[in-house]
Structures are given as C-alpha cells and as structure tokens.
C-alpha cells in the first residue's frame, strides 16, 4: 500500500487552504495512521469546498471582475475583462474542483461516463453563453 497521501489532494489543499497548514497536517497524520485514500480525498474536497463557501461571503457574488474600477474614465476601452463564473476568490478553483469531481466520478462510477461527457459539454456551452451575455451587458 502506498504510504504517501494523494499528491493531487495535498496540492488542492495547499492551493485552496494554504493558511490551514495544520488541517493538511492532520489529514496526513490520519492517513499515516491507516485512513484510506478515499477518506483523504473526501476530507480534502470538503475542506476546499467549505473554505471556498466561507470566502464567498467575503467577496462579491457571481459577476465580472474588472482589473480597474468601472468609473475611472481613463480606463482603456480595450482592456480585457476576467470572468469568474464560480464566485470563488481564488482563480481556477472552480475549474479545478470540477475537474477533480469528473475524475472521481470516472474512477469510481465508470458506467456514468456519458453523464460526465454531457455535463462537460453543457458546461462549455453555458460558460460561453454567460460570458457572451455578461460582456455584452458590461
């Protein structure tokens, strides 16, 4: 049995909850004491989700994030806008979580591959539509 905790899960924790190093340490300690990889993943995903949820109270909800305040007249008209579709304060977390979720479903419920594929396609379409609508309104 591999005695190292799942590296991707540890990377997820380091990325999303870097300030909670003791939490990651606790999970590593429990894993070394005999907990399963599935347990580690469950705990890591839950910790990341809880942190993202807590942070969402501190930041703006789903909206465009501008590099400069909208009322500044000198803002360049051609500046590109960054779109945050997940309301997460950490760029890339939403996409990373979805990728991890899709990977887990593929591993543990392989017969549901068509659901994952359909969800990915629907997500891409929804994302493109939302970006187009929001850029038009902005």
């Amino acid at each position, binding site marked *: 049995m591999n005695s190292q905790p799942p590296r991707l899960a540890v990377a997820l924790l380091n990325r999303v909850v870097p300030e909670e190093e*003791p939490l990651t*340490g*606790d999970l*590593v*300690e429990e894993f070394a004491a005999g907990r399963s990889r599935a347990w580690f993943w469950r705990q890591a995903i*839950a*910790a990341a989700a809880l942190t993202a949820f807590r942070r969402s109270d501190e930041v703006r909800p789903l909206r465009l994030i501008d590099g400069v305040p909208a009322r500044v007249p000198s803002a360049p008209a051609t500046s590109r806008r960054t779109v945050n579709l997940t309301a997460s304060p950490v760029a890339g977390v939403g996409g990373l979580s979805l990728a991890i979720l899709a990977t887990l479903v593929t591993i543990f419920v392989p017969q549901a591959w068509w659901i994952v594929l359909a969800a990915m396609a629907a997500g891409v379409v929804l994302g493109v539509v939302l970006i187009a609508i929001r850029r038009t309104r902005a």
Partner: protein
Amino acid sequence: MPRSLLTDFELMILLATLRVGDDAYGVQIAREIERISGRKVLLGAAYAALDRLERNELVTSTVGNPTAERGGRAKRFFRVTPRGLRAVKETRQALVALWQDLPQLKEKRT
C-alpha cells in the same frame, strides 16, 4: 440578548476540546466527537467551527512545531477560554430549561 448560545456542533467541539485537554488539536477533537457521539466529523468543518469560535474568543489556538509524521506541518493546539466555558454552561442551562416539563419526553414508569 447577546449571542451566547452555541450550535450543536460548536457545543460538541468545545466539549471535546475540554475533554481532550491542553493538547487538543484537530484530529484529537474530531476523534473524541466520533468516539463519544458516533457522529462522523469532517476535519474541514471542525476547523471552520474552531476558527469561528476563536473569532468569538471562545477558544484560543497556538501553533506547535512541525513534525515529520505530518509531512513537516505543525499542529494547531486549541484551548477553551473562560468565555467559552461560560458559553457552554449557558447553552446547557438553556437546553435543560427547554427539556423540562415536556410530556412527550417523560419516561414511562411501569
């Protein structure tokens, strides 16, 4: 009335921290809750509750030294403050008061 009553999970966290003692850290607190109550605890949820309790000055925390068994990461030790202890007592009193005189909860004597 100031908010002094605790949620059930906060109450469990504080009681488990008191039971474990001075060296209480996340894993031990979670294990104690699981051992006594049978309730599965997500460590992330325990830390979220502990952070909230610390913000409300019901617990304090100190960070220990990193250890190899934890991949070079430190432990965070928690201790219940006098204010936390008071909150536990007030919550207990409120729950006991609500519990009393309920015919639905009275034991049947044969």
